[in-house]
């Protein structure tokens, strides 16, 4: 087990190196000069050639591409993610730390909604397959998968905020501000997991162990919950685990719709301002999250499945 974890962690290093390089390269392909953009954002009245040159010198943009990449990488390894091009008074790490809590809050609330709604609904759809509930949910899943998140967000803002005036449409602070954005983020995940759990359960129902549980005269409720649901959840665990970084990364659009002060909003404004260090560090952070959660849930699956666990 220990060796497995170490090996997986070692394998993550080249992966993250590749992620950071590709990200660095693509951002540097953006056809505009970040020094010039930084000067504009800092509201320099007249932008001269010399001012741009001075800014380039200051931000280290006059060095060759590879040198800049390795400088940045070396900094990252030391925990120094650089300073923001746009606002040199702020460090990248500070900016991310300022926005991370709001995003985590949104992601956690969305995850809770996903888990609380999709497991029971998926369970009921499988138990009453082709019944009225299953048919209705099939329609709902179809519609909610087809609707893009920003549009659902706008609809909810209009319905709940403008027409009914029961929930605030933007900003953050109280739990009431959290409801609409969290629900918008979770909607497409809920449909995915309802389908996953429903189909897993229907697949498990055909297995020999279910027939044998019936042969032994176990009560239906015990067979459904203890055996079929547990076996179905088991395959969902990894998928759910991989959704956590996706939730953190995937809030970009919704955060902007609801002006939620999280990483997504920071990332979008950094892209507009060509604030390379912030974007690079954000992408690297998401990459690290994917690797960590992937590993964590692989280990969790090994622990929870007796067939994968090696008994001493």
């Amino acid at each position, binding site marked *: 087990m220990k060796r497995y974890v170490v090996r997986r962690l070692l394998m993550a290093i080249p992966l993250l190196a590749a992620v950071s390089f590709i990200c660095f390269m693509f951002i540097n392909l953006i056809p505009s000069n970040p020094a010039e953009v930084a000067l504009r954002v800092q509201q320099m009245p007249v932008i001269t050639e010399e001012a741009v040159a001075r800014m380039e010198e200051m931000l280290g943009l006059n060095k060759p591409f590879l040198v800049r990449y390795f400088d940045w990488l070396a900094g990252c390894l030391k925990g120094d993610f650089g300073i923001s091009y746009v606002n040199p008074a702020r460090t990248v790490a500070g900016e991310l730390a300022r926005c991370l809590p709001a995003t985590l809050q949104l992601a956690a609330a969305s995850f809770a909604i996903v888990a609380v709604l999709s497991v029971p609904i998926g369970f009921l759809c499988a138990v009453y397959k082709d019944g009225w509930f299953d048919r209705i949910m099939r329609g709902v899943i179809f519609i909610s998968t087809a609707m893009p998140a920003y549009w659902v967000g706008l609809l909810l803002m209009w319905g709940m905020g403008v027409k009914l005036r029961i929930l605030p449409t933007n900003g953050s602070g109280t739990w009431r501000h959290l409801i609409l954005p969290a629900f918008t983020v979770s909607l497409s995940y809920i449909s995915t997991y309802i389908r996953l759990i429903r189909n897993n359960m229907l697949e498990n129902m055909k297995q020999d162990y279910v027939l044998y549980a019936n042969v*032994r005269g176990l009560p239906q409720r015990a067979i459904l919950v203890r055996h079929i649901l547990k076996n179905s959840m088991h395959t969902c665990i990894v998928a759910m685990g991989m959704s956590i970084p996706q939730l953190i990364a995937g809030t970009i659009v919704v955060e902007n719709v609801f002006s939620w002060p999280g990483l997504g909003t920071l990332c979008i404004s950094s892209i507009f301002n060509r604030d390379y260090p912030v974007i690079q560090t954000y992408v690297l952070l998401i990459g690290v999250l994917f690797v960590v959660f992937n590993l964590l849930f692989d280990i969790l699956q090994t622990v929870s499945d007796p067939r994968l666990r090696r008994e001493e």
Partner: protein
Amino acid sequence: MTPVFEAKELKVSVTGRRGERELVKGVSFSVEPGRCLGILGESGSGKSMSMKGAMGLLDRSFRVSGRVSLQGEELLTKSPEELRRMRGGKVGMVLQNPMTCFDPLYRIGNQIGETFAAHQGWSRAEIRSRSLEMLERMKIRNPEEVLEKYPHQLSGGMLQRIMIGIAMAMKPALLIADEPTTALDAITQLEILNEFIRIKEENTAVIFISHDLNAVSLAADEIVVFHQGMIVDRGDFRHILHRAKDPYTRLLAEKRTAVMRSYRRALEGKETIYA
């Protein structure tokens, strides 16, 4: 003697995309206490379908009709809950693939225990002592360790014996064995067959479903032959082997005789070489 189990004109049909299709077309058979009825037939002949239908193990797309009685009680009119209490209680059942019949996520002891708890109001300690007693009766070594094992850590033969043990623990009037030896190697098959003979001697009625004439011949007192959802022949082993009227039964018997003949010839051939 009055039969323990009796099926009269039992029919099973399934409703699919192409309308209703009859899988078992009116079969009648019965088994008395201390006797073993062998149901012989190839896969898809309806042999296992008829028993599943009688015990309420088929889903809603199947329709079962006719009359099935257990100790004089009509089964087909019973509610699902009454049938559930009967399964694992009055009627024990053993299935074909012991390796896949247990839930991979629970320990063996847990799965034995939940079966006992579903039928008896035993305490935790009593369930444990009865489980150990049952494993010992099935001649399983280190029963305490086996209770802590997961299904994938035990062999097919061991799991099959545990299955028989679970079925017999509730002292059923009828034991249904659905291809109990098919997934096992030859030596384990013989052990399991001897187990059924012993169970029969304890006055339990046994229904032994198999496509293997050899296995059926060892355990069964009477054999019915299924072919395409109908009983085409019935009688004891000698009858099936030598005096069968039905062409399909004769085919089965001839195959078996041919195998035995070549087996003997091989043995004799060896003897002449070494003699």
